[in-house]
């Protein structure tokens, strides 16, 4: 029965997740199968017993363990030396040239550029505050107890607050045009706005794809399949060079908004497939019962089908958010100043040019922290959803 595996039907190409019921049972009992229970008298030898069971139980495993240890010996000491022991933590680029290890002073010197791009230096507390506000809201949204209507209000207020902080022009803040924005705020705002705007659009597209009216269905299928069939780069190119042509003469749209429009359309197509998966997981009896009660199409959709479907779709939405977050790095190709562009710009300074690795490690770590914590969160959500549906 499809009822038991609600998150399964929609294959989401960017983030393949193993069927949740398997992942859950696999992770809850990690080594039950491979490690037979030990006799009580063996407790003193437990580490040995563990190593024997998990590392040296067959000749093949022994060979693999030895190979892994060799690899560790090959990689870890030089890495540790480079990353920490021989690294230079502060000072000028001359100090770095003498140090054998990594040059973390490049981060110390360039961190403002990497985080905030060309935003006026003295005003950079504003993007910092905006990002802090944003991350706090992201954290708060992860708590189930806060999943109440006021959360949407709080988000709306946050976004307005971020806009005021970034643009300024009111309350004594100087005006900063958005071609001066850069770095982390661009990455965060593009990803969250593209998901937020794509979400309602994706629901309409998913409903349209399920519709019995052929014209609407064809349009939705065509849109979804086209967007999913082409690379995001081409969509961004279209947004950046073709949108200006679409508009009447004299009307111009800013580069950031154009990229946002492109990302929104692209994300909406992928989200629509996730929502369709949720819609298909709702038993047909539900909508038949709504029909029998005499509800109209929109009453049925808003009151019966969507509330059930969207709850199932939460984990895939989080996965899609992770993809969108990673994909914002592509806007660098159409000339926007996101975190990756800022990092690349930081590596082009002649004085610090040799230390590109440190800058990229740092930028990569930023992306990794966000994506990893969100993917862990989505796995937790999936286990939670499973616990409720599995009796």
């Amino acid at each position, binding site marked *: 029965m499809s009822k038991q595996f609600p998150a399964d039907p929609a294959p989401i190409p960017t983030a393949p997740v193993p069927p949740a019921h398997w992942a859950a049972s696999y992770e809850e009992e990690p080594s039950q199968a491979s490690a037979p229970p030990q006799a009580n008298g063996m407790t003193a030898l437990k580490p040995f017993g563990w190593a024997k069971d998990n590392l040296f139980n067959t000749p093949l495993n022994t060979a693999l363990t030895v190979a892994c240890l060799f690899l560790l010996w090959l990689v870890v000491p030089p890495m540790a030396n480079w990353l920490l022991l021989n690294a230079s933590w502060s000072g000028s680029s001359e100090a770095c040239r003498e140090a054998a290890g990594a040059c973390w002073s490049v981060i110390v010197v360039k961190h403002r550029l990497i985080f905030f791009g060309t935003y006026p230096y003295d005003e950079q507390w504003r993007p910092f505050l905006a990002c802090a506000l944003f991350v706090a809201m992201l954290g708060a949204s992860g708590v189930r107890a806060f999943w109440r209507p006021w959360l949407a209000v709080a988000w709306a207020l946050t976004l307005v607050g971020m806009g005021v902080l970034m643009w300024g022009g009111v309350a004594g803040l100087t005006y900063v045009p958005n071609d001066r924005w850069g770095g982390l705020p661009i990455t965060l705002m593009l990803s969250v706005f593209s998901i937020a705007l794509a979400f309602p659009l994706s629901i309409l597209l998913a409903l349209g794809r399920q519709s019995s009216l052929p014209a609407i269905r064809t349009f939705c299928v065509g849109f979804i399949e086209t967007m999913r069939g082409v690379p995001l780069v081409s969509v961004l190119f279209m947004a950046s060079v073709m949108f200006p042509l679409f508009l009447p003469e004299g009307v111009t749209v800013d580069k950031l908004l154009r990229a946002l429009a492109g990302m929104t359309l692209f994300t909406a197509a992928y989200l629509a497939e996730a929502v369709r998966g949720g819609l298909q997981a709702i038993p047909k009896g539900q909508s038949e019962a709504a029909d029998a009660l005499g509800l109209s199409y929109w009453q049925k959709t808003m009151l019966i089908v969507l509330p059930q479907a969207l709850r199932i779709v939460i984990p895939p939405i989080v996965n899609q958010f992770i993809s969108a977050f990673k994909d914002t790095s592509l806007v660098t190709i159409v000339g926007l100043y996101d975190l990756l562009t800022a990092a690349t710009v930081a590596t082009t300074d002649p004085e610090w040019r040799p230390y590109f690795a440190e800058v990229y490690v740092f930028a990569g770590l930023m*992306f990794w922290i966000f994506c990893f914590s969100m993917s862990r969160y989505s796995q937790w959500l999936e286990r939670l959803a499973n616990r409720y549906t599995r009796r």
Partner: protein
Amino acid sequence: MTNPVQALNSARVRGWLYQALFLACTLAVAWYLVSNTLTNLANRGVATGLGFLHREAGFEIGESLLSYTASDTYLKALVVGLLNTLAVSAAGVVLATVLGVLIGIGRLSSNWMVNRFATLYVETVRNVPLLLQLVVWYTILNRLPSPREALEILPGIFLSNRGMKFPVLVEHAGHGWILLALVAGIAAAFAVVRHGRRRREATGKPFPTLPAAIAAVLLPPALAFIATGAPLAFDVPVLAGFNFEGGGSVTPEFTALLIGLSVYTAGFIAEIVRSGILAVPHGQTEAGLALGLSPGKILRLVILPQALRVIVPPLTSQYLNLTKNSSLAVAIGYPDLVSVSNTSANQTGQVVEAVAMMMLVYLIISLAISGFMNWYNRRVALVTR
């Protein structure tokens, strides 16, 4: 006769009405956009239509599978770009699959250390944007030592800031025959497998399918190899002055793109392989053991057919993703389809045509791959009552 107001109560009539309204709105918006575009293009003095394809492109392309010069047409430039996209995607698919399957199996290993290594790989690679990884690979390759101090990673294979150099077979008339024999061998292997299955199904007796198939593939080329007088000589790259001479080579752009795409996609493929193998219930293995099958046969006849049913659909969409992600080549200067279309669009100003053609080509590739997936799914789908 029903009056118009009553007709509105019919779901069918309202359905037609909504659709008519929807179509009218869509057409109006489309007409508005198209007319704006035409006005804007006319104001900028840009020609429309596909005529530009037959004009001289006038730009060089760094690497090409065809012989291409700046005096060739835009059409040829775009074909060169498309071939470059397909080349890097095909190589990437093979590499990513090999790496992904190995790591996916590693994720399931009972060896704690192998397991942790595989998990570390997957969690790192999947959570860092591909573009960042590509830029890092490209920067590393670009700052490798010059050819004079090239790294010899394997005997005869050199890595330097000019790309990768490797030995190639010296061409010989016998190679055509060996290739022909190989094709014949593969055809023979298919026939052997078919025959083996028929005989097993008819008589119940096991047939040594795998050894027979391997023999069928390898024997004809081996015979041809001996018959044509063993033409096996390698052209090994040698350092001459400031660069290597001889051998084959790939550019740093291609190498960086290939490594980046394969390493990134392998992380996703590993998870697919892992979940596919986990999706086969353990009872299946036990049932196989109870029937007296050997472990190898259980894997081949029981586990793999069921796991593949789960693995292949998401795997295909990963191949599709890899092909689409190869468009990030534009960021590191590999002349793929997107990069060439972009240059053409900049030179001619015919942005709409260039972007539309680029999207159309990707769409065709996507539809072809998903068409294959649907065909495969129908073939392996569980037949239930």
